[in-house]
């Protein structure tokens, strides 16, 4: 019973986040669509939390450690390069006279 309710909880969270996402993204000016995409791409690298849990677990097999190691590296590349390049892009957007 508890298991079933936790699964539906997750679906509720997903649904609400998706609606929130629609509302937020709709308001982003087309001017910033490129930085928006590199930012969302970068924050999706939060999957690193899963990779860390797998790599650092006490019962991690050598296979799990190898896969987790590659996953942590890949997610870090994604997060670091995405966040830095988003900021680099945004720094260039200026109004007249600024």
């Amino acid at each position, binding site marked *: 019973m508890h298991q079933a309710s936790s699964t539906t909880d997750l679906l509720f969270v997903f649904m609400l986040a998706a609606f929130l996402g629609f509302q937020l993204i709709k308001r982003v000016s087309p001017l910033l669509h490129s930085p*928006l995409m590199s*930012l*969302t791409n970068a924050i999706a690298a939060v999957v690193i939390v*899963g990779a860390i849990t797998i790599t650092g677990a006490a019962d991690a097999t050598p296979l799990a*450690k190898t896969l987790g190691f590659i*996953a942590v590296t890949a997610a870090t590349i994604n997060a670091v390069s995405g966040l830095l390049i988003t900021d680099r*892009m945004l720094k260039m957007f200026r109004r007249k006279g600024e």
Partner: protein
Amino acid sequence: MDTELIVQGAYLAASALFVLALMWMSSPKTARRAVRCGEVGMLLAVVGTLIRHDVVSYDLVLIAMLIGTAVGAPMAYLMPMTAIPQRTAISHAFGALAVGLIGAAEYYKLAPTLPAGSFVLWALMLEMLLGFLTCTASVIAFAKLQEIMPTRPIMFAGQRVLNVLIFAAALGCAGMLIFVPTSSQLFPLFIALALLFGVLLVIPIGGADMPTVIALLNSYAGLAASAMGFALDNKLLIIVGALDGTSGFILAVIMCKAMNRSFSNVLFGGFGQLAAGPAGKVEERPVRSMSAEEAAPVLELASSVVIIPGYGMAVAQAQHRVAELYEHLEEMGVDVKFAIHPVAGRMPGHMNVLLAEADVPYDKLVELEDINPEMPQTDVALVIGANDTINPAARDDPNSVIAGMPIIEADKARTVMIVKRGMAAGFAGIDNPIYFNENTQMLFGDAKKMAEQLVKELQEL
């Protein structure tokens, strides 16, 4: 128990920061704050995870994070702005690879203990399917954008049938693995099919459709992260994945509308047919051409000029020269605006970034719907390296392959100047009637050299 509370608190705060980040992306004034939010959110998520009681060894994690930083930071600083779409594509590939591999590790860990048909198995299979197909699809998109691979669509007989079969086979494997967890020998086959399907999904797509592809891959990567959240019972991942998934989805829909493509076509891949069409019949019609020397006085006498940049400007790296031209004209008292078509460039909003790089103020960049009503009162429409986004056939000729695609109505300006290397067709490979209009002047030459010459001629006036 206490640690678990702190971890969940960190995840909750990280979720809030990511939502705030998207909120602040709505305006260039607050957007840099949005990036800070994203950075702090990511830091909280990582630190929160490191203190979890089930995470006991740190050596490998820290080494991997160091390597990732050493690779990621130069990628962000050394990429020219014209290569932003490639960087985004390869970054999607890394993110999706991480998702897929975590799914595989979880599968090996959990599959022996899970009951057949359990929810976690469903989520894991969805996670790996989306993760692995997005990974190879992004690599192909990267290769096409970087022109390691030909950008034209690659098509062969029976392609659609093959795609459907591969996808069905991947789903079949996933189904077996979910309902008969002992069939783990199918697992490598499942991964191979998902990887292969990603390749097949993107090879038939042409260069003109890349903005849509990149947006769609962004969406798939997000949904894969959400699926991972379902598998690991992690609400932070579900929330971030859903935000990323909807973001990519909305941008893909916007790009489809901007090219008048059906979204279902895009979802099922193979939607680059437009670019595959044969080059339009070559007609021997006269065009009027002008030199930079002749064009400069026309620009100087204009009271309003709308510059319409396209990918040709980006390829020629002409954005800085074009910005100089803009500054000169402004100094001469000419009202200059830039008209931006949504799909100009190789990813959504790419042209805005290129012009921002060249220090064109963003309040001078006007979108299609806002500039079109002004075009009939515009003295000169200066088209630089753009073809299809100004093709009046899209509006006037119901039989055109781009019929119905929204265009910037450059042809309505009093004078149209088109900077173009020759009479070759653009990405859509079709004829453009605007070249033959009475009020059109062709400025034959490379976008960068022509912009330089125009600046020089203006200085000498």
